[in-house]
């Protein structure tokens, strides 16, 4: 017993000492959508780079941006661009946000597997989520009420969906908000008349709706290919923000994530990798 404690204590001291000597600790904070990817990248990067310690935590895009503005993190992960208000605040605080798109993400529309509906247009989605379409029969389904599920209003996904699909109109007051995409997927999988939205990396036990941007346009199913070639209409960039153009170890890290190895890791855990040209264009010189 005593021996184990001693050994553990010794190991702890050694670890903290090695951290002191190596000196490079990078903190990454922000989007819950990106946190899994950030963690995988950190693990792989630390394997090949001795002496670099990377700490990754989530909390949401807003939390990450707030941390960047308060100089409390080296890298902020965000599933949306910073708002004008936030850029203004950054200027006041003397922070110069530098944005790099590190991967892509599609927002999928989740439907219960028993739902007859498989195709939806942007106009129908907008109608459904703003409350002007309330019955599935209006979009080709059974004669039952549509049950709306969504994210809490602090999530990047909420903001992105509102901006791109609802054109900044308000969500219907009947939208039930749940904490996290996993909860939305779970709710839709249990609710035959439910509809939800969230990242495509998450869907288990529900089906995706195919989405067309224009009425009469082609319905596209969300997948890694359709998001990365840009044909799926509800997709977004996932960003890393830095305070000023990254240099040294930070630059090495971000360029590594944009390398073939980095993007392959993203694809392995169901994120959508950037195309080769886009990744190369984003490399920090």
């Amino acid at each position: 017993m005593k021996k184990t404690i001693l050994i553990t204590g010794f190991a702890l001291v050694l670890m903290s000492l090695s951290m002191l000597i190596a000196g490079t600790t990078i903190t990454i904070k922000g989007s819950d959508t990106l946190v899994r990817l950030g963690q995988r990248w950190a693990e792989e990067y630390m394997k090949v780079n001795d002496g670099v310690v990377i700490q990754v935590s989530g909390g949401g895009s807003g939390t990450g941006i707030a941390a960047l503005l308060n100089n409390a993190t080296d890298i902020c992960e965000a599933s949306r661009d910073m708002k004008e208000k936030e850029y203004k605040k950054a200027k006041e605080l003397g922070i110069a946000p530098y944005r790099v798109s590190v991967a892509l993400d599609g927002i999928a529309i989740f439907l219960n597997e028993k739902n007859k509906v498989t195709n939806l247009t942007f106009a129908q989605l907008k109608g459904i989520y703003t409350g002007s379409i309330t019955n599935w029969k209006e979009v080709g389904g059974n004669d039952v009420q549509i049950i709306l599920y969504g994210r809490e209003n602090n999530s990047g996904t909420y903001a992105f969906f509102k901006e791109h699909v609802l054109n900044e109109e308000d969500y219907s007051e009947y939208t039930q908000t749940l904490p996290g995409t996993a909860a939305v997927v779970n709710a839709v999988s249990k609710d035959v008349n439910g509809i939800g939205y969230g990242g495509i990396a998450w869907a288990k036990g529900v089906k995706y709706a195919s989405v067309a941007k224009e009425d009469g346009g082609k319905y596209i199913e969300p997948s890694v290919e359709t998001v990365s070639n840009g044909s799926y209409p509800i997709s977004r960039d996932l960003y890393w923000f830095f305070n000023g153009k990254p240099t040294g170890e930070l630059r090495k890290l971000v360029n590594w994530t944009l390398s073939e190895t980095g993007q392959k890791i993203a694809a392995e855990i169901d994120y959508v990798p950037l195309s080769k040209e886009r990744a190369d264009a984003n490399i920090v010189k």
Partner: protein
Amino acid sequence: MKRLKFKRKSRLREFIGEKFIAINALVALLAIILIFIFIFKEALPIFTNPEIRQEAGLDKMIFKQVYYEGRDPKYAWQPNSDVPKYSLLPLLIGTIKAAIIALLFATPLGVGAAIFSSEFAGKRTREFIKPIIEILAGIPSVVLGFFALMILATILQKTLGLTFRLNALNAGIALGLAVIPIIFTISEDAMTSVPSSLRDAATALGANRWEVSMTTILPAALPGIAASIVLGFGRAIGETMIVLMASGNAAIISASFLDSVRTFSATIAAELAEVVFGGAHYSVLFFIGSLLFVFTFLINLGGDMVLTRIKARIQGKI
């Protein structure tokens, strides 16, 4: 001489001990006061800052607002909108709906269990039931919430054929589980502390056990039972995790208990983590916090006052 020295020493010890305990009590009091001040201070910009008052003044929280020209005025909670909407009415209705269901569910069960335990159960049974119900109070609310989200909601939807899986009924029943131990414990205390002279008198007049408890004990303990319900109500409106998980969190104004509801406490829990520090939304959430603080404070104070009065009366001081 020696004896005197000893005495002096013990007096000193007593003095230190007494002050130490007094300081401990003061720290608790101070903590409450400081929390009170902090929450109110953060809510204050609603009244003092003209920019925030413009966006989220008291009138905007209480009265119907016209948000877009040419549309009907309405109550809405949509703080992250191009036109932020901060009506508190949907949240107030949601909070009250969930609390009412909780009380309707917990009161008969809690009071019934208390009557059984204090009047009908044998000593062994009572010593078995009491701790078990009190353990219910120790279940973390997140566990109750998870149970309601995954299991209770499905059962209710299947048996009642509900449109909304997550609704006030579902959240209220889960809340009720958290309220039962409060109602049970306080009601049981109230009934067991009814003087045995009353019980003996009723029995001497020929009442059987049922008649004694219904016509004598229950009326005598009624203020205590009322206080237990009031305190249970306080718990129900302050409880956060259960409603956050089980209610669906849609801010709807309706009379139906089968619609989804969004409560004050769940709103704070869901939104406070990412609001702009010092902005209108931030202040409004703290204002809601202040309201909850005042509500629960008054409710608990009222319940407590009733209880102390009863105790004094039973002991013959009034």
